């Protein structure tokens, strides 16, 4: 096993004490242990299991960071789980998704999203998909290099959501306020309907999600394609919505000034 793989086993041990105890005890029912060399197994087994647990807030801290990015999804889980929601979320750190994600150098937000969405609930799945998209867009960094194409700016995205999801999100966020974890005990899910068969289009900019009209959605979707779009392609999209080439050029200019396009 490379030192990178071994380091990831240690990360898993720091976040999952049962796993750490199993590793140190030399139990063979762990995936990672099968790949450890004798020397590596010996190093781990010589470690004091208590050393992996000294930071008693490690998982709570990480979970808080995840809840901050998935407030509505977690609120949905809390409303489905009742009073056991807190322990239920901590179970993430002993899940296969967490361990496999760490071992494969995956993004934690993606592992967490996949784990949340394992529950059989369409509304939850839609919320997770939206909040994951926002989280991933927030991680985009502007890339270097000149280009002639028109592209979405870093952190900007366009999405198609089930009907009513956006108003549900706004309602849940308003209920949760800034102290999401504090609001989750006894949380009551709002009576908004989500219409899975319908679609509403939204624009995501700097973490904010706002409704978007059809013509602009088509235009921005075109810019969101890999490599962006040429002005001619955008003019063709505009023509489908009865916009002139001048209209399209003007819109593109304005969106660039607003930081939506680059």
């Amino acid at each position, binding site marked *: 096993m490379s030192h990178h793989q071994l380091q990831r086993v240690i990360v898993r041990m*720091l976040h999952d004490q049962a796993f750490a105890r199993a590793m140190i005890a030399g139990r063979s029912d762990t995936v990672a242990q099968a790949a450890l060399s004798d020397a590596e197994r010996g190093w781990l087994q010589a470690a004091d299991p208590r050393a992996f647990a000294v930071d008693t807030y490690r998982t709570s801290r990480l979970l808080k960071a995840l809840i901050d990015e998935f407030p509505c999804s977690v609120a949905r889980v809390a409303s489905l789980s009742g009073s056991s929601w807190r322990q239920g979320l901590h179970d993430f750190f002993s899940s296969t998704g967490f361990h496999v994600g760490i071992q494969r150098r995956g993004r*934690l937000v993606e592992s967490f999203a996949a784990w949340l969405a394992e529950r059989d609930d369409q509304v939850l799945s839609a919320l997770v998909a939206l909040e994951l998209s926002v989280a991933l867009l927030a991680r985009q960094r502007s890339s270097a290099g000149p280009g002639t194409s028109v592209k979405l700016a870093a952190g900007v995205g366009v999405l198609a959501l089930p009907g009513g999801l956006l108003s549900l999100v706004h309602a849940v966020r308003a209920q949760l306020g800034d102290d999401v974890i504090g609001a989750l005990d006894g949380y009551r899910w709002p009576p908004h309907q989500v219409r899975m068969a319908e679609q509403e289009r939204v624009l995501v900019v700097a973490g904010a999600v706002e409704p978007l009209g059809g013509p602009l959605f088509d235009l921005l979707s075109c810019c969101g394609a890999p490599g962006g779009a040429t002005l001619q392609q955008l003019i063709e999209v505009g023509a489908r919505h009865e916009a002139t080439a001048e209209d399209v050029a003007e819109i593109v200019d304005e969106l660039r000034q607003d930081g939506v396009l680059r």
Partner: protein
Amino acid sequence: MIEIAPVVVNPLRVRPVVGYQSGVIDRRQSFLERVVALPRLGVGVSTEYGAQLAGGLDVMDLAESAPDHVQFLEVGVEIAKGLDADALAWIDAGRPTTYHFLDVNLDEPDDLGPDWLREVAEVCRQLKPAWLCGDAGMWHFGPRDRNHMLLLPPILTRESATDMAVGIRRLRDATGYEVLPENPPGQVFIGDMTLLEFFAEVCERADTGMLLDCAHLAIYQHLHGRSPLEGLDRFPLERVVELHVAGGTHREHDGFAWIDDDHTTAVSAETWAIFDFAVKHATNLKAVVFECERNQAAATEAGFARLAETLAVDGHMHS
């Protein structure tokens, strides 16, 4: 066995040079040749994004009221956060800095991608640091992510040291600045090398200098039941360019005794012992940081006085 030359002149006695050339590395020279050109920064403090707003040290105020305490600022940088108002004010005043990275796993090639390197170069243009430095460990798991900061020591093996050295060379080549690895803190150290053997190997393979964190080393030695100075006589202290000193807190978890590297001003006797030894033998020492950014200025006085006592070899302190 490395012979340690006796120190004739305290290398920190000279006031820091402001306006030095930086950002250029002469690849034909070995580190021990290059180190001569690095500026002597003297004593400084460290800061991180938002440290003062969180109730920590006002570095500009301290630099005005006690200039001997803050001759340079070590700026902790997470590229995703950038530089805060305090760091920018320091730069605007034309004061010396070092760049302490908080977001790179040096031993992971994927972590030193072109976008991150480009942004590091941009921060360097703003900071004009004397060098780059930082804990050579695991700052994050998975791809770089703002919410996943942890800090784990590296796996202490030759393979890991080799990869670390490759990362150091790559960062040095990309930025044109010396990159000084720092020994990280930790409660779990895994591998077949000691911490000092590992970093001696890294420095040799990367042909670089070292930031020796005395408090982190004291934590490691304590954890392994070693005396504070054990192994230091075999460490290439001539590569040590910078020292860190910080206080810690003894804690216990389920009967397991450990030291929390929480940067209080209560510096342990073990940390001071390492510091005193290193100052005597680190012939290329250029900078000392008292990591007290989470404290108020009044609480730091005793620590700075103790630093000065050791640094004032033969009665002179930064004269």
